[in-house]
């Protein structure tokens, strides 16, 4: 119903592989091609992971712990290397970390000895080393205001709540104006209320900046609210026929209108079937029992 690439098995025949890759080279802004990661050579955590992201697209990946979501994101960020396969962004192979890809870490990863202003200024100065203090400061203040933290700009992270810290992390990622954003379960550690507000803020900023986003989440509603497409990932498991590595089992296209809000989301037509489909996947198909 929502699937454009229904099963991983569909990508298996070698003959159809080559032309398919050529086709995606033209359209995709970010192409992930046959990625795999193996800590034990015979049993890769995931294998044959291929997908593309278009410019301005918001894609969520959802799956159980241990299926390799974070590894995929780290490979995209250039912080980790895949065992095989490659990642191409904007026509160039991703071979290491780059300012072109902003990352929001699960654990906010702010430097505790710097204030909010200094934390973001550190990123801004890394992006534009030639900038003088005044433009750097103006830029920092603009992005702090974007996440509504202007009153707390000169506070240290230890004086902020979890939600505020994560907002700073988001502001830092946006401040370098990357070509795309990678978010590693940024709201995982937040309570439901805070999470909701920041989701709204994130969505507003993304819509406003036309940012391309790849995000990991555990939260089905979060994925439905934010994502244009949702990648469902399965864990590696032992089947009677042998070990089956994890991978992208299904790609779900979000049919809901793009101008959706968190408060009215569950009233939209098609919300419940979509949600049930994803939950069914997570409960029955994603993991071996």
């Amino acid at each position: 119903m929502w699937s454009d690439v229904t099963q991983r098995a569909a990508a298996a025949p070698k003959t159809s592989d080559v032309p398919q890759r050529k086709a995606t080279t033209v359209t995709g802004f970010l192409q992930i091609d046959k990625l795999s990661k193996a800590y034990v050579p015979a049993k890769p955590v995931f294998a044959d992971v291929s997908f593309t992201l278009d410019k301005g697209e918001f894609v969520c990946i959802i799956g159980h712990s241990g299926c390799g979501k974070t590894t995929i994101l780290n490979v995209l960020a250039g912080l980790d290397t895949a065992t095989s396969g490659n990642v191409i962004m904007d026509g160039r192979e991703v071979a290491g970390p780059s300012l072109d890809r902003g990352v929001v870490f699960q654990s906010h990863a702010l430097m505790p000895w710097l204030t909010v202003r200094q934390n973001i200024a550190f990123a801004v100065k890394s992006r534009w080393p030639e900038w003088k203090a005044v433009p750097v400061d103006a830029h920092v203040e603009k992005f702090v205001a974007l996440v509504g933290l202007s009153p707390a700009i000169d506070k240290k992270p230890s004086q902020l709540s979890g939600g505020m810290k994560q907002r700073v992390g988001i502001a830092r990622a946006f401040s370098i104006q990357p070509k795309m954003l990678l978010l590693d379960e940024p709201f995982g550690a937040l309570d439901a209320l805070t999470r909701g507000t920041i989701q709204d803020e994130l969505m507003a900023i993304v819509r406003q900046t036309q940012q391309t986003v790849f995000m990991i989440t555990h939260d089905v509603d979060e994925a439905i609210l934010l994502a244009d497409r949702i990648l469902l990932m399965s864990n590696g498991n032992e089947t009677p026929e042998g070990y089956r590595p994890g991978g992208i089992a299904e790609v779900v296209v979000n049919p809901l209108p793009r101008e959706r809000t968190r408060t009215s989301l569950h009233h939209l037509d098609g919300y419940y079937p979509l949600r049930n489909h994803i939950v069914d996947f997570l409960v029955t198909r994603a993991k071996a029992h």
Partner: protein
Amino acid sequence: MSASKNLNVRAGLLSVLIFLALLGIWYIATASSGTANSTAGMTAEQIEYAKMMGKDPGAPKSGGFPTLGAMGSTVWSHLSNPFYDNGPNDKGIAIQLAHSLGRVALGFGLACLVAIPLGFIIGMSPLLRRAFDPFIQVLKPISPLAWMPLALYTIKDSSISGIFVIFICSVWPMLVNTAFGVASVKREWLNVSATLQVNPLRKAFLVILPAAAPTILTGMRISMGIAWLVIVAAEMLVGGTGIGYFVWNEWNNLSLTNVIFAILVIGVVGMLLDLAFGQLQKVVTYVE
């Protein structure tokens, strides 16, 4: 706030009381000894014999533990004129202290210059960490004074040998702590600087250094403590100047009041040094 202030006041009062009690015990313990000896009940021959044996019963007894009064006047005489210099064996306490502190500062400073950069490199490279580990493990437990003969033989200068001994004892805690601090910088901060493509020098000074600073300063504080312990012993060996030499010299003079005074001064200066490093530590410590 007021509760903690109240606690501080009470603790201060108790400290003063303990101090007074210690002084009181000292006073009582030494007060009686002065009058204990007399010539009563001795014949002239017996007195003469005692004098010949070096035990003059008539003379005021001076060899015992000093009284509180004697101690007080010694302290006063030293503190009232700390900068006099009457030749090699008679210098004011401030001059002796300055010599010791100068040696410690030089040895400790050199140790900082070696240990912190080296610790940085060892901490960043697992290969070097493993390669250096056996050397550090063997060299660290060696008493710094064991290096003294070797230092005297090779350097041929007692003062520089003293500085070398301070250097060698200060190096290890700083080296180990710096390497540990640098190696345990949180992965996430390194990931942030990686994704921001921060150049290595900027990363070293703006990310790793502040992240490891509290650990590095702990190492420096430990080193300073050890250096101050060792300088006294080193100066006793090499002689010439310094608070350690002063202690040894006054022991040879059998002037216990001076020895006790020197001990107190060593304690107070050591405490001040530790407090100074404690303050520095506060500056670089961050709350996560």
